[in-house]
């Protein structure tokens, strides 16, 4: 697992209280991992903090799965 992916996965486990096995690349935060809209906002904020990036709201709307989060961060992390 890439460094970015493992950090993303551990944030999700921590914030959503899910098991690591559930956090697959395709898993959707809301449909598969039990997040509501506030949880999703919090996740995005945690990614911003962890990777020192700013994710604009219109981009954040497109980050709905674990895989989408990892790709976005890989592309934008310094």
């Amino acid at each position: 697992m890439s460094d970015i992916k493992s950090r993303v996965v551990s944030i999700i486990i921590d914030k959503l209280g899910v098991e690591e096995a559930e956090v697959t690349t395709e898993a959707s935060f809301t449909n598969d991992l039990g997040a509501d809209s506030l949880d999703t906002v919090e996740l995005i904020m945690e990614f911003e903090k962890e990777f020192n990036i700013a994710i604009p709201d219109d981009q954040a709307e497109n980050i709905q799965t674990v895989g989408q989060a990892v790709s976005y961060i890989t592309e934008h992390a310094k």
Partner: protein
Amino acid sequence: MELKRVVVTGLGALTPIGNTVEEYWNALLSGKSGAAPIKQFDASKFKTQFACEIKNFDVNDFIDRKDARKLDQFSQYAMVSATEAMVDSQLLESNPNRDRIGVIWGSGIGGLKTLQDEHEDFMNGDGTPKFNPFFIPKMIVDIAAGHISIKYGLRGPNYATVSACASSTNAIIDAFNLIRLGKADAIVTGGSEAAVTIMGVGGFNGLRALSMRNDSPETASRPFDKDRDGFVLGEGAGALILEDYDHAIKRGAKIYAEVAGGGMSSDAYHITAPHPDGIGARNVMIEALKDAELQPEDVDYINVHGTSTPLGDIAEPKAIKHVFGEHSYKLNISSTKSMTGHLLGAAGAIEAIACILAVKHDIVPPTINHFTDDPEIDNKMNFTFNKAQKRKVDVALSNTFGFGGHNTSAIFKKLK
């Protein structure tokens, strides 16, 4: 319109001297102090370095980690005590109409630690606001009532009462009134507080309200003692299930006591100091007695507000003497804050529980830490100093008074 009778059918307590109702009651009777050096933060530079904190408590034993994270401590305490009371009452086992079950929950401050943490994060950043989406819904004072209703699907009246240290007695009185008016069949009520934080202790120290007896925390809360020097901050929660008498009988519920009446008044005098003659305290007890259709002579036990502050502990006995006359020498008085510390918005709830159990078991918990009589207090009154006293308790009255001049009294009596 005929008012309905209201009874108590469930209790829950999470206190500095016991984490269940049973532990709490046993600790009250044995005269245990809950005060100790503060563990939740480094208080070494504070004027007061001790408090009555909850002990041996891991929220994850009660609430899923993911859910607990979204609750301020005052809501966590609320959930734990409300759950104990719900289980105790077996209310939901009778498959009641949940549209007619409400939650009215008091807290003096609400999510103080959440506010403190979020503000600290912001001040430590570069000025870009990055507030957690759960910040506001964690902090607001009404949210505990919301969480309790969500957990149990209770769709009746739902709100918070805020009147500083009278908050949860106001909650109990409101619950009582709504049920007797027929607006609900049952209400989960009580209150919780979690202010043993940097801002809580620092703020009350700033007010010069707290005892500074750092060399002897367990004797610091000494209501009515000559050398009292302020209250000891406590934290925790108390929960009561109040229920329409007919509803409770129909489902075969266990009944602890009947709620006899409630009184409310204001000092209209000063933001933090009590009226020196206890005018508000007099009026509120008179109102409660009137509401309960009882005479002063009917009252066996008064659980006083008695916070161990220099002024309050003089004004309240004066008010009792005014209202109860000669009978004030016959009834028992005690301040259980000598053991629990002052739970602010949760004080009324845990002290109502002390009254209800005194009525149930015919025994009065003590005012511990009495060493020296105060000549300004009439010590012919029986303050139940240092040891619990057995006596018939048919009627018990609980006083709570809050900053702002809010006064509340609730009366509980044996079910007859």
